[in-house]
Structures are given as C-alpha cells and as structure tokens.
C-alpha cells in the first residue's frame, strides 16, 4: 500500500502510528492544526481507508480515531527499515 499523503495528513498518520488511538481534539492539539481543518482531514483519511472513526459516546469528543491495520503495518515496516 502506497501512502500518498499531504504533509499535514502524514503528520496525523505518523502521530497515530506513535500514539495508537486518539480523539480528534487530541490530534488537533498535538499537531496544532485548526479544528475544522483537522476534522476535514480525518474525514478524508477515513474515506481513503487510512483510518477508522469510531463513535464513542463515553468520550468527550464522541469519536475515536484509529489507523487501519494496513496503514499500521506499513508504518511499522517504515520504522523497522
């Protein structure tokens, strides 16, 4: 799987690769990407099959972001190389 991403999308994917599951607000604060832009990017990444957005009512954001297995494996390979 080829990861063709814009720089900010790549930052999000790498952050998720390092940290595991995160909420959208955590991602926005960690990357300092404004909220609207972060949410749009997350939706785009979900449509492209890079991440999964899970509804979590118990969470303050109501959503949880995780990498798909393929992307996770791809990042692990890059780290190992």
């Amino acid at each position, binding site marked *: 799987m080829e990861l063709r991403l814009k720089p900010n999308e790549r930052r999000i994917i790498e952050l998720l690769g390092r940290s595991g599951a995160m909420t959208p607000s955590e991602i926005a604060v960690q990357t*300092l990407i404004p909220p609207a832009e972060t949410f749009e990017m997350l939706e785009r990444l979900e449509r492209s099959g890079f991440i999964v957005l899970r509804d979590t009512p118990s969470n303050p954001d109501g959503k949880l972001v995780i990498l798909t297995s393929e992307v996770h494996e791809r990042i692990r390979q890059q780290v190992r190389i």
Partner: protein
Amino acid sequence: MARRILGVVVLLLLVGALLTVLTLTAPLPASVARPQTFWNWLGVATPYIVVALLGMVVGLAELGSTFPNYPLEAITSGWGLGLIGLNGVVAALVLAIVRYYAPEADLFLLVLAVGVGFQAIIRTRFVLAKQFGEGGEERDLSLNLGWLYEQFQGICKTQIDLALMRERESAIEPLIRSFPDEKTLYNLALYTVMARGTFSREEEQAKIEELNKTMANPSLPPEVVQKAMALAILETGGQGFAQMLCGLPPKEKLPPPARLPERDTLVARLMQALDKGKLVDLAYRAVELSPAGDREALRKFVDDTVADKRSTEQAIRAVLARFVVEKGGIAFAQENLPPEQPPAGPPAQ
C-alpha cells in the same frame, strides 16, 4: 497461584499413592521378589514411575496444545490435573497387566512399549475395511480403541473451557474497572501485541487486524468492545501482565485526593462546567504558561480555533478543553474547575 501449586502437589501425591498400592499389590513375575525395604520397593516401582511419567507428559502436551493461550491455567485446573493423572495411572496399570502376562519380556522394551505404544494405541482408530471413493469415512469398518479416551477428553475439554471462561471473566473485570475507556484499552492491547517478542510479523499483523476489526465495527456496543480489548490484553500478555497493569495506576494504593484524574475525564469535566467564553480565557492563560518559544504558535492555534466557523460549538469546546489540559497541565485544569457538588442526600425531615 497457591491453589495451583496445591493442585499439582495433590495430583503427585495421588498418583504416587496409587503407584504404591499398585506396586505393592500387583502380582509380580516369579523371578522378582516382593520388596521388603524402601529401596527394594523403589527398584520395583521405577518402571511404573517411568511409564506413569511418560503418560503424564503426553497428557500435559495434549492440554498445552489444546489451550495454547492459557496452558498453565488449563493444566492446573481440576479437570486438567485429572486428565494428566489418569494418563499416568492407566499407563502404570497397563504395565502391571502386561508384566503379569509376559513375565519374561525385557523390562526396558516393556516400559518403552507401554510408555509410548500404549499412549499411541488409545488414541488410534484402526480402519479394518475401507470403502472405495472419497467421503465414506463414517461407513468404513473400523475399530476405535481411543473412543473411551476421546469421550473423557471431550468432557475434560468442556469443563476446562468453562473454568477458564470463569477465570477470564474475573481477570478482565479489574482491567475494565482500571481503564474504563475504549481508547486506553485499545492502546494497551495494541502495545501488548507489539511488545510480545515471540510473535512473527504475520501473527502480529493478524492480532492488530483483529483489534481494529472490533474497533471498526459500529454495531458493537462500548461494553463489548471494552471486553474484547481487555480479553486481547489478557490473552496476549497473560494474567500476570494484566494484573500488573491493574496495579499501575495507583488507584487502590493512594488515598483519593492524591489520585491524578484521567485526561479524558478532565476534558469532559471542563466541557461540562465551563462555557465557550471561559474555555477560551483558560486556553489563553494556558498559552502564557508554556515556554516562551512555543507561545506564538499556540496563540495562533487558539485564535484559529476561536475563529473557526465551520466546526460545531461542541467540537470547538472539546478542542479548547483538551488544549487547556494538554498545554496548561492537569494541575492547572483542576485548579480552574469549580468544586464538585456532593451528591444530593435524602431530604431533611
């Protein structure tokens, strides 16, 4: 753990006692004198002990391969120990019978034949006549010497499975209590998979895929996802690791005021207690607490968040509350929370 050790000791004592009775009462070949001292007895009993041990090792291996995720728990469960003991005692009994009917046979060969051969025979199905063609296995004429053992094995497997399920349930409950949100449980499960040095790349990927499949399934309620994640931690890391994780946040060890709240809990409390204006004010104060070199970028982020017209107010409040906790710190966030109202008591009479 003490219960498991006690179980093993009881099994060894029982098998030892049965072997003693067997060697003292079983008819011996005419060439062998009845033992008078302990050392004499040990000499007579050694072949039986070897055969019993071989049988017990086979039983152990069977349990270990049937329950690869919980080998120790399966082996030390009551039914597991029973299966191991039965394998050992029956093998010794068979040696006694064979020795009685073949007193002149070489003892070493007998021990080998019974210790290894008997174990193979009771697990073998001999096909006497086979039908032509494929798929007619059940209509073949066969002699299944292992039928009885298979039935007992089936009962043991079901009972061990049920016992393990009860243990699993009681082992994952503390995990869910200690980490009540899906995010932390998922991250711990992910870490556990990646930290296991013995997984091959394929095994690791398969485990992660399993975790992600559960997380990506929108029809699964949070309770099920939590249990699945806790179970993955338990199965991958083992019971000791799960117990260690539960001991990590010092919830039980420190008195309540010394406990640090979870960041997500603090974010939720800030969102609940403060309106957007107050959160913005706190976010700017958090910027001032940051290192001087970071302040410009952080201030711009808060400016952009406040000016954001495309996101919902709920989303903006979540980002501001998160910013306060992450950049201002837990102590700063706690200081700026209104004191929690004690739960309402019963009305005064």
